């Protein structure tokens, strides 16, 4: 919501800063929000506007802050270089911590939306635990984000909702090129197509998926369009030539 007027050139998406990893050093936080003392409770949801924003530096997550990321660059004040996530605590966090310990690196909220970052191998047990013990019985979405400059380039996101609690949370895991997260089909049937779409767009394969094939693009298409290096006008020339009998689909 910054107010500066000069239109900056369209920032190439690759100039991305490390983000959403462990909340790193409190260098960045300057946002002049009203500082509520760290009494975070379970955030209700996306749209419940009851909690005021709290500055990120106020508190580190009570959990393990994880490795110290090299804080991108000493940020010019006011322009945070990381997501100003706040710690997330509450009964749900406690029970997850008790069960999974350091397999979950971070519990945080941003814009009153809760998320956690976990080991890729622990995601399915977490989804299972959340479904059976904590009523998160609705898998809303699975998607991924590509950060090509990071050591492990993908961040896979599972969005969950609990009808009983009316709470939405996100489970995130960092996945490297060629790594295969385990399918969630065994826990939520909805995962089937959603994982196929992630595979289709990013090339992330899910271990144990019953039908790990492309879903939106043609089966024999080459390339994964939502990877950052895939240009907006790029296409599978050979496929277009062969199947559409034209030189270019553009």
């Amino acid at each position, binding site marked *: 919501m910054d107010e500066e007027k000069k239109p900056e050139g369209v920032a190439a998406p690759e100039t991305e800063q490390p983000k959403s990893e462990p909340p790193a050093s409190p260098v960045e936080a300057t946002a002049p929000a009203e500082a509520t003392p760290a009494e975070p409770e379970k955030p209700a949801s996306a*749209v419940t506007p009851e909690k005021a924003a709290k500055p990120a530096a106020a508190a580190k997550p009570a959990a393990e802050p994880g490795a110290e990321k090299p804080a991108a660059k000493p940020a010019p004040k006011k322009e*945070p270089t990381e997501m100003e996530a706040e710690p997330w605590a509450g009964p749900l966090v406690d029970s997850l911590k008790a069960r999974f310990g350091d397999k979950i690196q971070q519990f945080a909220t941003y814009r009153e939306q809760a998320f956690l970052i976990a080991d890729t191998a622990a995601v399915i047990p977490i989804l299972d635990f959340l479904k059976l013990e904590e009523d998160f019985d609705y898998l*809303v979405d699975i*998607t991924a*984000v590509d950060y090509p400059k990071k050591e492990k380039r993908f961040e896979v996101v599972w969005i969950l909702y609990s009808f009983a609690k009316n709470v939405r949370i996100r489970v995130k895991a960092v996945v490297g090129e060629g790594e295969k997260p385990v399918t969630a089909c065994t826990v939520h049937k*909805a995962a089937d197509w*959603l994982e196929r779409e992630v595979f289709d767009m990013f090339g992330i394969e899910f271990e144990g998926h019953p039908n790990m094939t492309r879903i939106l693009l043609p089966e024999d298409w080459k390339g994964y369009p939502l990877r950052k290096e895939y240009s907006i006008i790029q296409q599978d020339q050979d496929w277009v030539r062969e199947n559409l009998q034209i030189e270019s689909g553009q």
Partner: protein
Amino acid sequence: MATHTTFLDTNELVLNMGPQHPSTHGVLRVILKLDGERVLGTECVIGYLHRGVEKIAENRTYQQFAPYVDRMDYVAAVSNGLGYCLAAEVLGGIEVPERAQCVRVILTELNRIASHLLWLGTHALDIGAMTPVFYCFREREEVLKIFEKYCGARLTTHSFRIGGLQYETYDNFEKDCHTFCDWFEKKVDEYEELLTTNRIWVGRTKGVGILDAEACKAYGVTGPVLRAAGVEWDLRKAQPYCGYEKYDFDIPTCENGDTYDRYLVRMAEFRQSARIIRQAVDSLPSGPIKGKVSKVFKPPIGEAYVSIEAPKGELGYYIVSDGSVQPYRLRVRPPSFVNLQALDEMCRGALIADVVAIIGTIDIVLGEVDR
């Protein structure tokens, strides 16, 4: 196994329905595995309308991308735009003025009526009831006229902007809405007279394509399909946005989760939408229609998932911002795509003719399935 076949053999038959088929409402191909007339299983082949909307989003500014979302679910373009604007506003921490919120509710509910009307007309047509489609399009025309008067466009309206609205309402907007609601509720009675107790209609829809609450949750199915299975869940009530908590309305539900119940739920939603529109028009506050948004909209680094109750179910936008003018990643959680996944479960054991009814009853728009 058997190498020689006679006409008495009962072999399984694989049959393609679509990609061009009148009842698939777009380009959807369903591969049916049949035993005689019984469906043993189905597989959907989708992607014919894939345009890479999520990729386009990464290459446009937030404002530039807004018109694109209208092209996903093009029969409910207003809902798409609302979801997108809300997500961007949450991400950017923008307050929307009351008047804008109220107008948003009115237009979104009008669009819900238009979307359900298109569903009802074509669904009934698929099953063989010719008349409703003419009625439905007649009424839908009135909704589209209001849109046209409001913003000049009828289908892909792009009526909302990040932060509020682009246009003030026109002079007789309130009156038009009231006139429409009064007139329309009588029309709903007409549809019900035609169908609700119609023996053919009941015969073709009752007990067809049952999806119970458990299965709905497992498949992530939302919207009228979920409510017809008895789950009283509507995002407008569960997690109100745009001031929906101020309006008095009910969440219609049924119990059996079959095609007939989904019909009843949507018919009841017509009335509820009209009820909301009346209240919103009566309480339309005066004031500005757009919040403070800088011309160069740059939300801070962060991410947000915001979803709304679109006519077809939960429509969500997950936006990741890297602090630039373009979304770093934008994911659309389309209700049609997720709901269509349950088609196989609903079709097993049904007759071929029922598949037509079941595709209709899920209420999909292929533009949204394929994006």
